[in-house]
């Protein structure tokens, strides 16, 4: 079933929407959650929660790209779960490593951004990603958005792990510089 039809089911409040979306994007969402959490059982729970959230938000929302919409929700649910696990010292998947890497841009110690600061940051990050050369963007998005392990990124793009790591390092430096230049950090 195509995305438009699936979204149509959501709008009709037809519960087949959930089975269809699960069959089509469940595995993808599971991968995103598992990358972040590292624990399959927790990832499965996250996917269920994410699908439920999708059910709650469509309508009124009508996502342009259903897969990304679901991935965003899954990522957010999984990340909240990751924080919970962190508090309980239960480890986690790649998320801890990704956050460590992002601490090179902005340290972990700072308080969360205010609403206004976050709006600025979001716009700057978006513009930065748009301007990045495609190859660097692919690598960065795979690592930070989908929390993919470096090895998987390297395999997917036919690169060495070292090359992926150095590209990520370079992108982080560039992003940090952009945020400094724009006086966001």
């Amino acid at each position, binding site marked *: 079933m195509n995305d438009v039809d699936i979204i149509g089911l959501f709008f009709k409040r037809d519960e087949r929407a959930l089975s269809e979306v699960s069959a089509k994007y469940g595995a993808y969402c599971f991968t995103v959650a598992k990358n972040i959490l590292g624990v399959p059982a927790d990832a499965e729970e996250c996917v269920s929660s994410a699908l439920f959230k999708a059910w709650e938000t469509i309508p009124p929302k009508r996502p*342009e*790209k259903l897969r*990304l919409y679901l*991935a*965003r929700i899954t*990522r*957010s649910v999984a*990340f909240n779960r990751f924080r919970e696990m962190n508090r309980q010292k239960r480890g986690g998947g790649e998320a801890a490593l*990704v*956050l*460590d890497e*992002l*601490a090179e*841009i*902005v*340290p*972990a*110690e*700072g*308080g*969360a*951004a205010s609403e206004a*600061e*976050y709006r600025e*940051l*979001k716009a700057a*990050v*978006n513009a930065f*990603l*748009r301007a990045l*050369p*495609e*190859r660097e*963007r*692919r690598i*960065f*998005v*795979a690592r*930070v*958005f*989908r929390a993919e392990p470096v090895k998987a990124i390297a395999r*997917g*793009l*036919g*690169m*060495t*792990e*070292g*090359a*992926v*790591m*150095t*590209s990520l*390092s*370079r992108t982080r430096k560039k*992003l940090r510089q952009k945020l400094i230049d724009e006086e*966001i*950090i």
Partner: protein
Amino acid sequence: MNNEDIFRAVGEADDAVLDEEKVKRNNSFRRIAGMAAALLAVGAAVLIAVNPWNKEKQTSTDWRPVMSNETGATPEPFVVKAPMPEPDATPNPEWFAEADYKPFKNAQELADKADIIVRAQIYGEGSVMAQTRFEFDENGDPIPDESSMEPRTLYEFSIVEVFKGGNEALKLDRFMTQGCSFLFSDYYLCCPPAPDIDCGEYILFLYKPEIGSQWLWDNCAMMVGFLGDEVKVSYSAMGNPVIESRFEELTYAWLEGMRDR
């Protein structure tokens, strides 16, 4: 503001920048194109790969010597691997401006600036822990940082032929790749890049560090060096395909020059 804000912001970026569907299509296309090219190249490439010193022209995309297992003293027969992906068409000018890019002018310069050039047979690999991020003290010496230690692959080789460097060259017997680990030493060593180093013959170039790491970094896809048991130098050119292919091109040009002598 903290690192979690960045994580969140990336997650809320536009669909257009997060969508990897296009990427998958591109990768599939590249793979298919690569396989087709490999099939076409096989007939000729086998003949060339059997002897890397063959008079025929060698290019980075039509052959790669492969051999051996990890312990491997005995080479297996050479086989042909799929070509490396085409370099991205245009270098990003911003990249080069930022890196103060100074490419080798030609193969002669590549060789002239090297202190040691050897032909080496890589026969085994292992793993080492190496520092991957560096801060420097006021004397310019690297500050040890245990937290950035990561495993890297170590390759052992034996010298087959010394072109430059005499006895000094004969002290070398191993190098490391896969990343940006970097320690100061007497020499930088660089070798032709490949997606992964397989056992086989490679030409290794060494440069004394006063040439400047940035300069070398701009020119070489890999600069690696070990002397005895101590890790000496390793560096990577960020996987930049333009620089990698440039370095390969110069290496092969130099080889051709040597054969013509």
